[in-house]
């Protein structure tokens, strides 16, 4: 039985896509924190026990409190996404749920383990012996890894659907779960997202301590609070650029329309330039700095590589080109800026075993957190908007998946209000927690601690 959608109320598609963008754009930041923050916490915790480092212990306690908040908000904002799968995209789930749903079921296990061990870890301060407590944190970091892999698998499947057979009526008749999970895009998307989580978390956390340093806090606690997350993010950054390069070349092969939009390629042919900036107006590139041949060179290691342009793709099958291209350039700019900052840090460290002392370094580090979030969101836009007009690449158009329920616009308006308040409240609470000073760590004021 095929899931039949019926007539589409006007503006439903726009409302549903915007609602998905807002809720996912919000959740993705928290998801990154959920994946990578526990590792940073464990590094501080390890150091605290291994070297009896009181500063590291204070950091670990402080960070575990922040994780308690961000994980809770991430857990519920992720649940909203689960609801939206059906509320906004019944056509996707009704037709492809049997294949597309499987990675989410695996992700469910990892998320469950993460929730359990985060509770045990946070609750375990002062109750478990130090090393037992440390060990209880390991499953959190591991489930972050497994969770990223499985949930990104689902997104990769939307870009490179595999592992199923379609019947004559278009319904999924046979499913090979391993084919669904290990689709073409799984490795590069999952790797890219995993490193992004470490960059975002590392740079975001380090930026708060960079601000502290700019305000004159030069103590060892602030220094350690900066160095752990920044070092992790600095290591992740060059790896990410390499990973991104692999991903972009895979997109060149797997999704020519997305690649053409990313690089603003108009005509099919060799010697394709990379256009930095610029937009497409009436089929002509306006503005921007073309670098001859670079597009072909990057795609196939040779300027003779033929790159498919938008001229070979029917207008109805093209993504919104300018959004994809500008998001792509934004991600690259932020990414290479962060790479420069990471290099500054790395070279100073190798030469002098010391942090840079220049105030400019800390000024840049203070905005690195925001820059990494910008890169994250821009990259996500490239992936998602670049796949349009398809929700399942080549098989199901987004317009054929969206709900026909009459309340989509009202729902979007309410979502906007709730998420604005939620974002503001999250910011205020985290900010006030960071200002509660050192006193809150000494009294065992742990989130889930007993009443005293």
């Amino acid at each position: 039985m095929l899931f039949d959608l019926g007539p589409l109320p006007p503006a439903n598609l726009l409302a549903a896509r915007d609602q998905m963008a807002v809720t996912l754009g919000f959740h993705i930041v928290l998801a990154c924190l959920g994946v990578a923050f526990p590792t940073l916490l464990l590094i501080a915790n390890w150091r605290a026990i291994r070297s009896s480092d009181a500063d590291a212990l204070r950091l670990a306690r402080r960070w575990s409190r922040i994780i308690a908040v961000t994980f809770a908000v991430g857990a519920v904002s992720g649940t909203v996404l689960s609801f939206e799968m059906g509320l906004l995209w019944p056509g996707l789930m009704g037709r492809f749920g049997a294949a597309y749903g499987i990675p989410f079921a695996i992700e469910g296990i990892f998320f469950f383990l993460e929730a359990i061990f985060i509770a045990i870890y946070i609750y375990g301060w002062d109750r478990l012996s130090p090393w037992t407590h440390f060990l209880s944190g390991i499953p959190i970091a591991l489930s972050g890894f497994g969770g990223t892999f499985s949930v990104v698998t689902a997104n990769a499947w939307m870009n490179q659907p595999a592992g199923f057979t379609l019947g004559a009526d278009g319904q999924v008749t046979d499913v090979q779960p391993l084919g669904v999970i290990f689709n073409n895009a799984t490795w590069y998307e999952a790797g890219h997202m995993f490193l992004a989580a470490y960059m975002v978390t590392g740079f975001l956390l380090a930026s708060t301590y960079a601000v502290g340093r700019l305000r004159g806090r030069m103590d060892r606690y602030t220094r350690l609070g900066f160095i752990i997350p920044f070092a992790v993010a600095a290591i992740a950054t060059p790896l990410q650029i390499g990973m991104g390069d692999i991903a972009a070349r895979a997109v060149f092969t797997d999704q020519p329309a997305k690649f053409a939009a990313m690089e603003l390629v108009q005509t099919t042919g060799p010697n394709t330039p990379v256009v930095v900036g610029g937009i497409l107006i009436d089929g002509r590139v306006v503005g921007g700095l073309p670098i001859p041949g670079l597009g072909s060179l990057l795609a196939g290691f040779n300027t003779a590589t033929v790159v498919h342009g938008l001229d070979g793709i029917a207008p109805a099958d093209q993504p919104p080109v300018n959004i994809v291209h500008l998001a792509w350039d934004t991600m690259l700019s932020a990414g290479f800026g962060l790479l420069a900052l990471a290099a500054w840090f790395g070279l100073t460290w190798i030469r002098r075993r010391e942090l840079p002392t220049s105030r400019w370094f800390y000024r840049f580090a203070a905005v690195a957190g925001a820059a990494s979030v910008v890169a994250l969101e821009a990259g996500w836009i490239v992936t998602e908007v670049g796949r349009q007009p398809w929700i399942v690449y080549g098989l199901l158009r987004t317009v054929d998946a969206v709900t026909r329920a009459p309340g989509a616009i009202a729902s979007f308006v309410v979502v906007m209000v709730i998420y604005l308040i939620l974002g503001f409240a999250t910011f205020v609470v985290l900010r006030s927690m960071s200002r509660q000073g050192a006193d809150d760590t000494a009294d065992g004021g742990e989130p889930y601690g007993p009443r005293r």
Partner: protein
Amino acid sequence: MSRAEIVAAILWLGVTLYAVLGGADFGAGLWDLLAGNSTNGEPPRALIDASIGPVWEANHTWLIFDLVILWSAFPLAFASLMSTLFVPLTLAAFGIILRGAGFAFRKYTRPLAGRRAFGATFALSSVITPFFLGTALGAIASGRVPAGNAAGDPWTSWLNPTSVLVGCLAVATGAFVAAVFLVSAARRQGDPDLERYFRRRALAVGSVAGGLSIVGLFVLAVDATALYNGLSGRGLPLVVASLILGSTSLVLLARGICRGIRVVAAGAVTAIVWGWGVAQLPAILPGSLTIEAAAAPSGTLDALIVISIAAAVTIGPSLGLLFILDGRSRLQAGH
């Protein structure tokens, strides 16, 4: 048992765990809402905080588990019910995010005004969410969700006597199980005042839930005859079991006996959830879609069975560890 039936049973197990554990966390929110001003409400609110704090996220995860099993194994049923029940399920999703965020934020907010605002958000949405989820269950059980995209009525599918009844029952049973859990928590903590406080409330809401169930039988007889016939036929043993367990828990409460009371109360909820499932067999959406017709291809079902076994092996012991550590630490805090 066919593969589809096995996965349906796994789904029902997940629904049961969410109804008992997730329901109790919502119920705790109701007691938080009714705990009075910030001075008088301090002790019960602190107990509620300490009781659900470490476990609510894990309990909440059963809902996610249920959703992913439903959409993978029975995609047609999932798409049909999410589209017809767009309004109550959107409201439930809002309630879920506000509940979780409110609870987490309250814990880390110092100023009283902020704590109040976040606390009220947490507590109010703890009442609203199970109500809307309940109306959606009522819609399914009374055969008001046909297969297809938004094929049912967007309003009367969940604004009808059965839905409102199940919504109220969801709130009441959650509040009852929560109060029972809190009685036990107060006992472990050695706090007789709080124990009495929650025992009174458990008895009161337990009686309300019992009364609602009796009224409910008449409502179902008129409004949802197929469900009524199922419950009074195949499902009767489970309905009776729920009745007996429910009354037993009230007697135990009245006598001040704590031993085993949590299991008995949870058993009463479990029996009614399974009674409903058995009553509507072999349908997943009564009136339009059977479990077999909605089921995904066998490759998916096999994968879900394997995943569920993996979940049982990994999550089971971890969850046990969490609950044990949770119970033990509260014991220590009481000394």
